[in-house]
């Protein structure tokens, strides 16, 4: 038995959809954010698997850039959540509807 690329792809698809389900069922803005990180990670796993099986380092480079963007996104997003919490005293996304008409 050898590990083919399908194993990694199925694991990555499963993790991505757990992240999607998390975004849909959770109401805490911070946990929704963590689910987005989970989805980014599963996409990274796909890219690393393909890079490794193709014997190329470009895919790993892309993962490096995805990590950079994820760090920037987490910093700005958490700052936004802190700003919202200061105004509305909640992180429940059902109550943060100030943009809804």
């Amino acid at each position, binding site marked *: 038995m050898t590990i083919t690329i399908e194993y990694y792809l199925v694991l990555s698809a*499963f993790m991505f959809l*757990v992240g999607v389900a998390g975004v849909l069922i959770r109401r805490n803005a911070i946990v929704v954010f963590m689910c987005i990180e989970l989805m980014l990670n599963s996409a990274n796993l796909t890219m690393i698997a393909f890079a490794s099986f193709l014997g190329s*380092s470009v895919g790993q480079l892309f993962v490096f850039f995805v990590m950079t963007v994820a760090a920037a996104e987490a*910093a700005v997003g*958490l700052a936004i959540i802190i700003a919202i919490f200061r105004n509305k005293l909640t992180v429940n996304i059902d109550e943060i509807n100030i943009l809804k008409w």
Partner: protein
Amino acid sequence: MTLEVILFFIFGFVAAIAAVMMITRTNPVIAALYLILNMASLAGLYLTLNAQFIAVAQVIVYAGAIMVLFLFVIMLLRPDNERKFMESNPKIKIFAFIVAGFVLLQLVYIIFFSAPSKILQKNLEASVQAGTIESIGNELFRNYVLPFEAAGFLLLAATIGAILLAKKKIE
């Protein structure tokens, strides 16, 4: 059962179970700790794929820096029990389960239908060579210098933006 198979199944199961536990725990601190476990086992999976540099970067950047930021914000903003949020609408749970299950089935079907392992066989030597810091650095500083500089600029902009957003308003 070679070592590669055993390691893949250990890390894969830990990653999958940690992901499911993360979205089902009501306490956000525990959810964050499960996400750290998930990221650490992903780093193990990267090692089985011979991506040493990315595995180390995963532990330092994701499991280290980003998750510390998350835990810091969760503890700053009262780690409320989320049960009252989750029970607010049980219909959404069923909807989410159906959507996720359907798309997962679709993806698995596509993966096995296209069968990428027919063309992609692991070439161990090329794969080990691709994961070294030397080859990643060669690629990064020869062919991808502009994206690298853009990433640095993005981080600078994000830092300034985060400070501006989170600082106290001076009236």
